[in-house]
């Protein structure tokens, strides 16, 4: 966005590639960014200026949290005084009540990034399956057409359920990017249910899979929201400030200097910025007191439910840069020394974050996937596209670099057609990865129209429309079209070798 507000407004109101709702949202962002009232520290300003830190275009005057994760279960149990809703008696009431709340979520973008653990919320209301399918189709269609944002995320519980099966079936059938979807996988998730979910993933690029045991240990009763952010249910991700690790080699004189001086310094800069933004949201704007969600107990204002998200990208470039690695076999992802140094950086980062007292709630470490303006940093601690080693080594590397990412991380793998006939193949990989400590995995069929762009879904056909100056319903297409050009996403290594 340019500094000339008139230009920005004219561009926004004339832009042929956005819908009316997207236009309204862009106009609100211009208004918000016309004043800057957050009080940043000197250290934060230094890091914004040297490019090693970024505010994710979250807005210069944040009057709401980035992510809001209401306790939908409580909401269905008690109804809502403010929304004048009784607790639901049947599945249509339940769906209706949920939709009312979705349109009243006070978070960035004005739309929910989390719409609940749908199968668990709706299973108690499933009586007759055909009726339930009709109601769930109504819900999913409404969400897709009105929320229209692939950052909107539904969860599925670890247990097999009628509602879960219906959602998987409809998801495969509808082939829409919204809502994004994650199944919270546990060791006792039945194989048969897992295979049904993997079947759906191969045709619709969702659900993804979260390691329930690991995240529950870190976050308690949690939800996967937006791309794959992990937050406590009844909580908020107040803000996300990102460390651009690919810029750190410019600040470090040696590998030791990076670990001993630059990382502690950078952690101060990022945590300061998180605190400053939280201060504005929580104290200056009285975010909690100004929403009925807080009054009705659907979100909580306490240490365990307020998360300041510490994001990072570009670990690979940081390692290669600081160690001066050029030959393919010695670079991050393949070289032993490089990978060991990468792990050391991550450990150091977490150690410094844990040392620092948090002014609002607590800090969560999040492997960020990138935004459309990015070109220099690989998402989180992933291996750059084109440099991936064989799949088992890529998975082990992913596990190793993201051990401390309690607020979410993800890795994604496109698979060939042949894999569709053998869902147990993916089940074996997934279970092995989770037992080895992986937090989150996404799979998709390399030939499907729905593709995963860093963490959310877009339709290849929508990207084409966007490039041809046509509007598409999914807001994420706007991000996706540029992200995938800059990050070469369609060049990802396709897995599942065919053999005669």
């Amino acid at each position, binding site marked *: 966005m340019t500094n000339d507000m008139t230009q920005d407004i004219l561009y926004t109101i004339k832009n042929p590639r956005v819908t009316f709702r997207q236009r309204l949202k862009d106009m609100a962002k211009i208004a918000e960014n016309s004043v800057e009232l957050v009080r940043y520290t000197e250290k934060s300003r230094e890091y914004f200026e040297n490019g090693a830190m970024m505010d994710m275009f979250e807005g210069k005057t944040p009057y709401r949290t980035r992510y809001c994760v209401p306790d939908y279960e409580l909401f269905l149990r008690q109804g809502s005084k403010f929304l004048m809703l009784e607790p639901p008696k049947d599945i249509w009431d339940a769906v209706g009540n949920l939709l009312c709340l979705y349109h009243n979520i006070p978070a960035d973008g004005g739309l929910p990034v989390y719409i609940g653990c749908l199968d668990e919320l709706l299973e108690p209301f499933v009586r007759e399956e055909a009726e339930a399918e009709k109601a769930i189709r109504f819900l999913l269609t409404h969400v897709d057409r009105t929320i229209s944002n692939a950052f909107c995320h539904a969860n599925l519980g670890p247990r097999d359920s009628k509602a879960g099966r219906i959602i998987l079936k409809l998801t495969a059938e509808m082939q829409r990017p919204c809502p994004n979807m994650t199944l919270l996988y546990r060791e006792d998730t039945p194989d048969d249910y897992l295979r049904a979910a993997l079947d759906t993933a191969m045709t619709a690029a969702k659900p993804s899979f979260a390691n329930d045991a690991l995240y529950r240990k870190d976050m308690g009763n949690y939800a996967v929201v937006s791309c794959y952010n992990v937050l406590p249910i009844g909580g908020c991700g107040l803000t996300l400030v990102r460390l651009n690790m690919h810029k750190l080699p410019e600040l470090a004189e040696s590998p030791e200097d990076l670990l001993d001086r630059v990382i502690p310094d950078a952690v101060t800069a990022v945590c300061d910025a998180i605190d400053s933004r939280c201060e504005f949201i929580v104290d200056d704007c009285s975010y909690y007191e100004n929403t009925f969600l807080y009054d009705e107990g659907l979100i909580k204002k306490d240490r365990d439910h307020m998360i300041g998200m510490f994001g990072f990208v570009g670990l690979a470039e940081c390692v290669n840069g600081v160690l001066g690695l050029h030959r393919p076999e010695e670079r991050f992802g393949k070289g032993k020394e490089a990978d060991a140094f990468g792990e050391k950086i991550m450990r150091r980062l977490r150690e410094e974050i844990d040392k620092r007292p948090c002014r609002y709630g607590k800090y969560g470490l999040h492997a960020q996937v990138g935004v459309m303006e990015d070109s220099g940093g690989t998402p989180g601690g992933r291996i750059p596209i084109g440099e991936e080693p064989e799949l088992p080594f890529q998975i082990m590397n992913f596990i190793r670099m993201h051990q401390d990412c309690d607020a979410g991380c993800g890795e994604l793998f496109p698979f*060939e057609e042949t894999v569709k006939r053998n869902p147990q193949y993916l089940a074996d990989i997934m279970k092995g990865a989770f037992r080895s400590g992986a937090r989150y995995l996404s799979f998709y069929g390399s030939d499907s129209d729905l593709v995963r762009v860093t963490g959310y879904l877009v339709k290849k056909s929508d990207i084409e429309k966007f490039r041809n100056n046509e509007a598409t319903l999914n807001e994420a297409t706007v991000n996706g079209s540029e992200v995938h050009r800059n990050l070469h996403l369609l060049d990802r290594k396709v897995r599942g070798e065919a053999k*005669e």
Partner: protein
Amino acid sequence: MRKTAGTAPVNKIISFSAVDGFGNRTAIFLQGCNQNCLYCHNPETIHPCRACGACVEACPAGAIQMAEEAGERYVAYDISKCCNCDTCIRTCGNSASPKIRNMTAEEVMEEILPYFPFIDGITTSGGECTLHLDFLTELYGLVKKEGKTAYADTNGQVPLWNKEDFLRVTDKTMIDLKAGTEKDHRKLTGMGLHNPVENIKRMAELGKLYEIRTVVVPGVVDNRRTVELGSSLIAACPEVRYKLIKFRHFGVREEYLNIPEPSDQEMEELGDLARKNGVREIVIT
């Protein structure tokens, strides 16, 4: 590469494979085959290298060298320099490959162990892996010790039913049925039909048969006869799959490129035939 005692010639190891048996498997391809099928899709796995050196000159990456040890000349292959362009394979006039590593079971095990958290087990293939039964028995034993399964992908020419040590460590076999009559089988593979049929029967009885597979090649053999025979052999075992594989031009020798690929309809008809004859699970690929 020079062959030493206790080793087998490894042509290739694929860490994760979705098409070599149940779930995710590490596939290990051994060099050398006792059949010579007209349409072979990887003819470079048929013969051992005869050290003629033609590929040494052709290699653009300098990954292949002539070497000599104990008076024996052989082609040495350096996997770290290889760019996988397969020029050597195209150059070879002997249906062989210089990209062979002679490895002991322990060496193979060391290389594949990092894949074990993610796989159901391993599958050995070829070439014809049962030409190296002692090696397989040792490797499978090591694999079983780690709690994983061992499958053999075979053309069935080596009698397996009397190889007790081997069978003790083998979970499943996957056996080719290339033709339905003795005449067709000899024409196509150069070998008889008896052993594959006997192996299929015996392995099915032992519960050690995962699937049989038939490559459907129009005009060369009577495909209906093949499927009729195959179905009759496995109809009584509902857990055994029948895999019908479309003949494809990818990888075959130039002189067989004029054989037509079968149509989808032809494949479906053969699938229906197998189903009618009592086969429960049919995979067409």
